[in-house]
């Protein structure tokens, strides 16, 4: 098991290094940072001056090494747009987004898992059809539209929840539901299929022959097997919540990483954008690593390194 974990961690680190290099290259080739700082109408001499001052005239590999070294030391560079260290910006905004991501994933889990399990245990029942109906409609509804409708209903019409902002926990309720709902269809369907397969399996028949029925059968024999594939998907979904926060935070005026990303892109603030893209990618890698380890803990067949 330890060997398996070390292996996975080593692989994750390798992926992270490659990711950082690719994002760095992409941003530095797709845009000219000197122009970005100088602005669109700047004189060529000014641009050249900026290029020299900031060292953009040096080879890209040297600049990458410098940047990566800084990241390792916790120095994320300086924002041109906000005139602040990027590390400070990120540290300010990250807790808000983390809270939003965790809350919305909880919304997904709380809705999708029980619905999927109950649907699978009563296949083709009214309950099953209703669950599938919910999944299909949720899949069809765009995120931003659901957000606006919820604001109109719950915040404007009925005044149950705040419209926007991130001052209290209540402010996070609507955005979490909106962001969480987008993952419900995929997770619910996977839970349902996994559970259906497991309930048809030979070892469930063995457990029934031993006298297990109902909740005990599901809890003691079916659940762990059915949830193995769901765990991997949930990990990816949590990663998607971070990148998905760009739209949701904008709709609900939440000052998190998503909104920071949008503002930095609009302001051509390359150092910030760079770190944010890298961070969002790292969240994916870390979540996948976590899912791999969780899966191995739950499924002995995976532990053979």
């Amino acid at each position, binding site marked *: 098991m330890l*060997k398996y974990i070390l*292996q996975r961690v*080593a692989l994750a680190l390798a992926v992270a290094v490659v990711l950082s290099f690719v994002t760095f290259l992409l941003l530095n080739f797709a845009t000219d940072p000197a122009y970005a700082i100088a602005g669109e109408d700047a004189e060529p001499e000014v641009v050249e001056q900026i290029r020299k001052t900031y060292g953009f005239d040096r080879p890209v590999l040297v600049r990458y090494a410098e940047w990566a070294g800084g990241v390792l030391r916790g120095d994320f560079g300086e924002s041109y747009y906000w005139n602040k260290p990027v590390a400070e910006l990120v540290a300010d905004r990250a807790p808000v987004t983390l809270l939003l991501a965790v809350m919305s994933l909880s919304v997904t889990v709380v809705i999708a898992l029980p619905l999927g399990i109950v649907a699978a245990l009563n296949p083709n029942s009214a309950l099953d059809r209703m669950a599938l109906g919910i999944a299909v409609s949720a899949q069809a509804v765009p995120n931003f539209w659901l957000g606006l409708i919820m604001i109109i209903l719950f915040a404007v019409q009925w005044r149950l929840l705040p419209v926007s902002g991130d001052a209290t926990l209540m402010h996070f309720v609507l955005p979490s539901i909106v962001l969480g709902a987008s993952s419900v269809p995929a997770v619910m369907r996977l839970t349902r299929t996994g559970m259906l397969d497991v309930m048809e*399996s*030979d*070892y469930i*028949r*063995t*457990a*029934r*022959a*031993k*006298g*297990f*029925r109902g909740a*005990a059968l599901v809890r*003691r*024999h079916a659940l*762990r*097997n059915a949830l*193995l594939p769901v765990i991997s998907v949930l990990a990816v979904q949590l990663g998607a919540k971070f990148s998905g926060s760009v739209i949701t935070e904008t709709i609900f005026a939440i000052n998190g990483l998503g909104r920071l990303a949008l503002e930095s892109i609009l302001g051509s603030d390359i150092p910030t954008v760079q770190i944010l893209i890298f961070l969002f990618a790292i969240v994916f890698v870390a979540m996948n690593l976590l899912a791999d380890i969780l899966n191995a803990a*739950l*499924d*002995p*067949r995976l532990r053979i*390194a």
Partner: protein
Amino acid sequence: MAETVLDVEALSVTLDTPSGPLAAVHHVSFALERGQSLGIVGESGSGKSMTALALMNLLPRSATRQATRLRLLDHDLTALPDRRFAQDLAGQRIGMIFQEPMTSLNPVYTIGRQLTEGVVRTGQMDAAAARRRALEMMARVGLPDPATRFDQYPHQFSGGQRQRVMIAMALMAEPDVIIADEPTTALDVTVQAQILRLMADLQRDLGMAMILITHDLGVVAQTVDRVAVMYAGEFVETGQVAQVLGAPRHPYTAALLHAAPEPDGARHRLAAIPGQIRPVYGQRSACVFENRCAHATPDCRAGHPGLRAAAPGHAYRCVLPPQPRPAAVQPQPTGQPRDVGSAPPVISLTGVSRVFASRATPFHRPHSLRAVDRVDLDVLPGETFALVGESGSGKSTLARMLLGLDTPSEGEIRIDGQPVSALQGVDRARRIQPVFQDPYSSLNPRRRIGEIIAQPMALHGLGSAAERSQAVEEVMARVGLPEAFRHNYPNQLSGGQRQRVAIARALILRPEILVCDEPTSALDVSVQAQILNLLADLKAEIGLTLFLITHDIGVVHQIADRVAVMQAGRIVERGPAARVLHSPAEAYTRTLLAAVPSIARALATGAQERGQPDGH
């Protein structure tokens, strides 16, 4: 008089199907005393597994159970709600062992947990006592080092070991009745012999009643006291093993016995049973076997035959007078190998090995496995060459290399004197063609039969549409498929018909050699006989060379000229089939042969051991 533990009268199971209610089990009655064993034999679709599931309250949602009496000890199961059955009886008083040991254990929990949870759940034992009992049972079923293995997971056990775990699990609560549904079908023959012996021993020692469900008459003959032959949901013949298998009174029982290749007897043409089981919807107004019976008369359609007694304890459902056993059996057409001795071999293997090596990664050292180990082999034109071995012996890897689907790591394979590697496309297809094991998955379900059979021609761009159509017609006639089937889809055909399609597809390019990998192991006995007869006919009529890969000694006995026995990648013994099967030289061959269940042998030893075959 021993205590009756299970008493079943007029048990029926009705399946709700789109075509109406289907009687999967119809008026089945039997009683089991403590220490008795009953075998239920039947082909697929006979209702034997449904009977078991009905006794265990494990029927699918679409099935309903009726019975005039269904008693387990002093419990009336017809009146007992499922919750109570699960709470008080399932796994405790009545246990079950399933067919598939590889998938019947939960992969994510330890063996120990799965062994003990049943008795702990019902409060029969605390965790510590259950663990002691589990270790004891593991030792009893022959699992070495129980204390270590208790904490291991199913994937760390072999198939035979998992079936031992299943048996230990079923015995944890010392049930009064144990039901075993095809417990050894998925296992190798030597493992099967061990498991059957173990079950018979345990049943006798613990004084349980046992129901053994199987399609294999040999298994029944050597394991149980009484047998019930099941057909279309009903018991058509019941009695002591020696009565039913020694002097069958129902034509179906007799036909089954003639359809099974018997390794100890002389080789003769198998008497295949034509047609297939006809499902019965609604009322039973005629004999269920009448449409396939060689002796059927108008009387058979006049009414549903009741049970008649042939002897005390021996009953059958047939209105006909006892049939004389067919005296003259047809000889199997052989078709002598062309120019035996002088002809050059059509297949020739020299020093062929296949080594599977895992790739070296930063985390793994490479390791390798010799699946096939320096095999030399010649197959002569027109002969049937059988390669016999247990799972993992390397026989299928060898077949894949022969077909060019895999490449030898060392050595050379020649077909018609040319290296296989040099034969490409249509050259190879015209020489050698495969027939695979499972006709349910080896035919494309979305193509019509005619297209499937013509596929090899289409693939190589051979012939015009009219020529292909002509070729399909000829080859379908050759394998005994009605021409009307060419527009059908595979799922409209029975297993035997599908295997005929697979053979027709292999024959359409007129190859010299057919490589048949377990061609009948997915089929019922009566259908297996049809396919073996067809292969023998093809060999005699068109001089085909057959390369047969099988684990089934009966099949080898039935059609092979020469045989090679493979173990762990090597050929340990080879020679003419008659010589190898009747006077094997190697210890492994002898073990293999001794493990094959034989009806004749079981009846002979059973008569000796039991003295009088009346069971009292």
